[in-house]
């Protein structure tokens, strides 16, 4: 029971934050709402007993990506004023399509017979993840590292001051 | 040894083509290089064909085996393969083609002055076409070479003909006429493929064509026949020949008369006879009738000619009539199962037809060369202009006498045997037509002696009647000069052949006889 309540609280909180991100007029607020979402998801991870991921989520999303987004907002915002019309012309259409999409998927998911989980999570999860990285998934791991390097260099080159 | 045997035919066929390519690569102005090269190059197929003849005679002649076969897939999807072979019928004709090509090249080396390179190129290509037809045993291959032969001839007639004789008209007429014919042939070939599933002549013959659909068989028989008749040329389809001959240059008309006409006859003997024996038996008499008409009609028309070359052209129409008569006789004989001597006479007729093919080749070849000789000097072929040349140009007179008399079938010279065998066969099978044909012999004698020899050689020679004589090399001369060395060298082999084959035709006859006996027996006689 406690778990369900906790889940509902966290889920509700996250969805609200998400709605905020989407709806917020002021871009900065949207960014903050986004951070809220990240927290909510980290909490969910903890609920799902994936502490490592939660911590990683916080470090990566909030520490790096959110900061990056805020930087971007500040660098590109120029004028401080309110945004004229945050949405483009097609948002009605998109909204309708999204609701339809969500309805369909959830209807499907409800119908889908998922086995209820029973086994408990392994306690040495982190060791297994570690060994997974250098064992079974060593190639994607290396590729990911190269990807990051390339992205890094790319970003620097793109955003570099051209004097 | 058998590698040489299997590749010799392909060599013979394609060597001239290679030669023409090499000539094409040579610079235009090096004319005598081109001439020397192409002459010596054409000697190779000649040597090969002679070796072929000797080799064939020594070990393949018994039972007329189809030797030197080479067969490999050409268009596998529809089962067309490059299948060549030679038997008693085609070996002598190959030799004839090679001989006339070499002599033609040798002769025209000194006579052709306009566009030398194209001439030799086309001539060699023509040789390939002719060789190809005689060796191919696959219908499509036969058709391809048949067409290849046409194109160079078209140009030879069109370009080197003298403007007075409307060469373009003649060339186009020749080309379209033969082409139209060959279209029918192509249809028939496809018909053969549909009915027997193969384009190979031997296999198709073994299987029998359109056994189940007589109307189709009849149609394809006539389709084939029309294509070959146009080429032979037999009576109703012959009008292109005189124009083509008068317009063609000397060497061109030698080859045209000497070999190209034989393609039609050879086609009938090789393709038609083996594929449609039933229809042949049924319509043989029409072929014989056309032959006889050809003989008589050709003889009479040539009697009325005043132009020397046109006369000889019509004479070859008449001589080819003998072939058609012979073939027709063979056809009718196929039907005469019960008559005792029929098979014997059929063999004789077949012999006669094939002999006539060879003999007419060398005789008419020689005649056209002779026409060329006089034409190079007088630049006119109107017989009324000449007279009394016998005293002035004795060597030319002697050669023309030999050729003339051989042509009218004087025994002791080559022409006689062909006529004798043809009539021996024809009398045995279609006596009534043969009797009409015999009239042709008398008329032939008439027009040769009266029109050619009398108007050219006999009588009083007075230089005033024709003024612009030149020597063969073009310098002005006041009267006709006798034959130059190169003309002698061109003509005398033919004359020697005429005399030798006249006295003792066995070397040639052995081939044809073996071919005729075996082909006829293989037609489940």
């Amino acid at each position, binding site marked *: 029971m406690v778990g*369900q309540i906790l889940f509902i609280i966290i889920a509700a909180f996250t969805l609200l934050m998400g709605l905020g991100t*989407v709806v917020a007029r002021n871009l900065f607020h949207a960014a903050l709402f986004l951070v809220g979402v990240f927290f909510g998801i980290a909490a969910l991870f903890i609920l799902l007993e994936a502490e490592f991921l939660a911590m990683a989520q916080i470090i990566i999303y909030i520490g790096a990506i959110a900061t990056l987004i805020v930087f971007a907002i500040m660098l590109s915002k120029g004028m401080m004023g309110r*945004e004229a019309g945050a949405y483009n012309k097609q948002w009605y259409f998109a909204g309708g399509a999204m609701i339809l999409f969500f309805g369909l998927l959830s209807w499907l998911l409800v119908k889908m017979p998922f086995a209820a989980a029973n086994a408990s999570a392994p306690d040495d999860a982190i060791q297994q993840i570690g060994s997974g990285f250098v064992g079974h998934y060593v190639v994607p791991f290396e590729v990911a590292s190269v*990807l990051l390097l390339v992205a890094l260099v790319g970003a620097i080159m*793109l955003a570099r001051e051209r004097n | 040894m058998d590698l040489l045997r299997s590749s010799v035919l392909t060599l013979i066929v394609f060597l001239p083509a290679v030669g023409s390519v090499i000539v094409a690569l040579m610079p235009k102005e090096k004319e005598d290089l081109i001439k020397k090269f192409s002459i010596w190059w054409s000697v190779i197929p000649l040597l090969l064909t002679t070796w072929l003849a000797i080799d064939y005679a020594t070990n393949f002649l018994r039972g007329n085996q189809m030797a030197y076969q080479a067969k490999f897939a050409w268009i596998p999807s529809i089962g067309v393969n490059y299948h060549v072979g030679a038997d008693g019928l085609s070996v002598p004709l190959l030799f004839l083609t090679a001989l006339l090509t070499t002599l033609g090249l040798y002769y025209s080396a000194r006579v052709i002055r306009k566009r030398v390179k194209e001439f030799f190129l086309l001539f060699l290509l023509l040789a390939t076409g002719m060789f190809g037809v005689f060796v191919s045993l696959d219908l499509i291959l036969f058709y391809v070479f048949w067409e290849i032969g046409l194109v160079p001839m078209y140009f030879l007639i069109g370009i080197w003909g003298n403007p007075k004789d409307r060469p373009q008209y003649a060339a186009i007429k020749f080309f379209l006429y033969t082409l139209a014919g060959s279209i029918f042939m192509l249809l028939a070939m496809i018909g053969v493929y549909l009915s027997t599933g193969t384009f190979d002549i031997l296999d198709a013959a073994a299987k029998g064509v359109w056994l189940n659909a007589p109307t189709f068989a009849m149609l394809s028989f006539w389709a084939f026949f029309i294509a070959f008749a146009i080429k032979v040329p037999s009576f109703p389809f012959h009008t292109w020949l005189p124009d083509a001959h008068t317009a063609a240059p000397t060497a061109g008309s030698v080859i045209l008369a000497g070999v190209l006409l034989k393609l039609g006859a050879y086609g009938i003997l090789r393709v038609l006879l083996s594929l449609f024996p039933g229809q042949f038996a049924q319509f043989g008499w029409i072929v014989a009738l056309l032959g006889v008409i050809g003989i008589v009609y050709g003889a009479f028309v040539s009697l009325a000619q005043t132009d020397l070359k046109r006369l000889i052209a019509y004479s070859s129409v008449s001589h080819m009539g003998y072939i058609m008569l012979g073939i027709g006789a063979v056809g009718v004989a196929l039907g005469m199962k019960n008559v005792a001597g029929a098979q014997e006479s059929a063999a004789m007729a077949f012999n006669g037809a094939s002999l006539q093919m060879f003999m007419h080749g060398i005789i008419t070849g020689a005649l056209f060369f002779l026409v060329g000789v006089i034409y190079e000097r007088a630049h006119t072929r109107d017989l009324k202009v000449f007279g009394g040349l016998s005293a002035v140009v004795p060597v030319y007179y002697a050669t023309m006498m030999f050729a003339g008399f051989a042509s009218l079938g004087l025994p002791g010279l080559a022409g006689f045997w062909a006529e004798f065998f043809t009539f021996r066969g024809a009398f045995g099978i279609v006596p009534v037509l043969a009797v009409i044909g015999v009239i042709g012999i008398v008329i032939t004698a008439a027009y040769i002696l009266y029109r050619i020899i009398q108007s050219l050689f006999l009588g009083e020679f007075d230089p005033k009647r024709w003024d612009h004589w030149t020597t063969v090399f073009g310098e002005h001369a006041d009267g006709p000069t006798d034959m130059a060395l190169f003309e002698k060298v061109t003509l005398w082999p033919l004359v020697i052949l005429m005399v030798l084959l006249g006295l003792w035709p066995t070397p040639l006859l052995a081939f044809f006889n073996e071919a005729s006996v075996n082909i006829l027996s293989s037609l489940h006689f």
Partner: protein
Amino acid sequence: MTVPLSWYLIFATALFSLGFFAVLSRRNAVAVLMGVELMLNAVNVNLVAFWRYLTPSDLSGQIFVVFVFTVAAAEAAVGLALMISIYRTRKTINVDEINDLNL
């Protein structure tokens, strides 16, 4: 009674739809990027949920999430860098105004 898997999935779908809606309708490029981040997170939730409910012993679910993190980070970095350089040249980062290739 623990939380059934479908709840997580439905939650993730909802979050995904929100993100997608942001991508589709927001004019500002950054907002679009945020929408993308939302979508990626929704996917992460799904992954972890599947790991936790279906194959707890096999850690590949979590490993995949880590890879999604790296991709998200790289994507954010490059996206924002692009956006900054576009902003510098076009003085606007409204997605619907950037709709032709040359200036």
